[in-house]
């Protein structure tokens, strides 16, 4: 999946003032790359990820998904892309608290209309791959934060996403667990050829990334 942006800008209006969270960003995300976007809090990392993940609409500029202008897509088409081609990993995991690990991973497959059997088999396999084979029936509150983030990664992979967008995936984790999660994302990138786009402060993420961008005041800069 190729994602390209041209002159991407997102302005928020707060009262009478305007905040430019993403400012004229043009860049391209190649397939199967591990991309890190580094910047301080409030620099526009999350807003940029929401834009390229089709969770938000730009004020100006365009996003192209496989050379197709995303602004021409209907809400339903954008949702379908998010469901089947893009996986999300959030800093705060965003697992549904009433569902078990297994059910959280099954959810995107259920929404995609996969059979119960297929959902169950794949969810078990994905959770085993992230070393949570013994935590299938546990609810999020019964898991450690590292385990919750691994469930979140398994959920992002449920529909064989081509791109995983991870917003500060190690932000809530201790250094040891953070290292495990980065290793997991790196494995996914290398073994499955899944594109990983990570917004982070974490130096360890930067070390494994193929491409590094920095962002400051909404302006994106290629570092390598």
């Amino acid at each position: 999946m190729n994602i390209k942006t041209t002159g991407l800008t997102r302005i928020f209006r707060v009262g009478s003032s305007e905040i430019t969270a993403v400012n004229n960003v043009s860049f391209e995300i190649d397939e199967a790359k591990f991309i890190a976007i580094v910047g301080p809090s409030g620099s526009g990392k999350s807003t940029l990820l929401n834009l390229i993940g089709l969770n938000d609409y730009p004020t100006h500029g365009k996003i192209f998904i496989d050379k197709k202008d995303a602004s021409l897509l209907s809400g339903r088409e954008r949702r379908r892309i998010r469901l089947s081609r893009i996986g999300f990993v959030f800093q705060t995991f965003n697992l549904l608290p009433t569902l078990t690990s297994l059910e959280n991973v099954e959810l995107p497959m259920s929404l995609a209309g996969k059979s119960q059997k297929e959902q169950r088999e794949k969810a078990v396999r994905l959770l085993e791959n992230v070393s949570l084979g013994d935590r299938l029936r546990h609810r999020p509150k019964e898991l450690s934060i590292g385990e919750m983030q691994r469930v979140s990664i398994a959920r992002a992979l449920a529909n064989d996403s081509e791109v995983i967008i991870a917003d500060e995936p190690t932000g809530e984790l201790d250094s040891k667990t953070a290292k495990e999660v980065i290793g997991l994302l790196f494995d996914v990138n290398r073994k499955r050829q899944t594109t990983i786009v990570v917004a982070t402060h974490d130096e360890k993420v930067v070390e494994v990334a193929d491409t590094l961008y920095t962002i400051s005041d909404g302006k994106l800069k290629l570092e390598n």
Partner: protein
Amino acid sequence: MSVVAIGATTLRYISIIKEMHTYFNGKIVIVPKGTIVIEGFPIGRSNLPESIADQVEQEVEGVENAVPMLFIYNLEGSLEALPTNFTIGIPYGNWSVLVGPTPLKPGGHWPSADSSKNEVIVGSSVSDQYDLNAGSKIKIEGHDLAVAGVLDTSSALLSRSIIISLEPIQEIYGYNMLVNLIVVEPMKEVGEEELAHRIEEEIQNVKALTDEERTDLARPLISNIETWTLGIRTVLFVLSMIFVTTVAMMNVSERRRDFATLDAIGAPKSFVFKMVITETGLMGLFGGIAGILAGSVAAILIASFYTGIPISLFFPGIFDITPPFLMLEILVSTVTVSCIAGVIPSIAAARMRIAEVLRAEY
């Protein structure tokens, strides 16, 4: 709960009035002029001479027979909203005018001509309330009488009645040769309306009511009760709807991150919408079940409070107090109201966007 309690209580009044309509079908009821009448049964203390019954039989053309009756409702022990019981006096040999084919419970017997001055027949509720059986002694206004039998009926009127011969009841209550209602059976070929008109022309100061006239008199009363009930129920349902909407909105607000996550992972709006509607529907279902249980208990407490009848006696007849169709109606209504109340929260949930939620959080 309130809907059930109000519904059950008013339904009981309505069912008693409607049941009264089943008595004296095809017959004319004569009452003193100016008397308030509910389906032929006089309310108040007006009376007329018993001799009018003979006069009607002998002087008015087209009368098959005329049965005088004394209908006394006893408010003792109640709060004067619903009578505790009714004492009805009918001349010996004419009891079938009121009780029809209703049987007696095993062990009882119908009073004979000789014993009818000292024996009464009681309804099943009166029997339960005062622990009376065939052969029991009963004291009415200081007079000692014996229970000859217990009517085997679920009729709201008969089950709460004490039926006695006319003469002793006149003596007991001081109605010397007086009655308050005469039931007239027209001859086969005579029209009810025509005969009623003839009776009113020939007998002074009486009102002769046909079936239709009795129904017309009761209709506004039933209509008023039903309108009030409907009004109260509507207000309660609107209040429930506001309450469910508020609770569901708070619930959606607390779970905004979950709904936004569902949107982020590509869940269709309809999925989120249905999810919240289902939740509010279930809230209505369980709330409805809890309300029916609590409302039925409240209806029993109200009935017991107004009639002085012990609560324990109502429980075997819980479905008489809160009929199954009322329970079903309430359940369907609460689920429907909750689903309607869930529409706005469901739309709010379906519109949650991850970008907005995360921006609001950080």
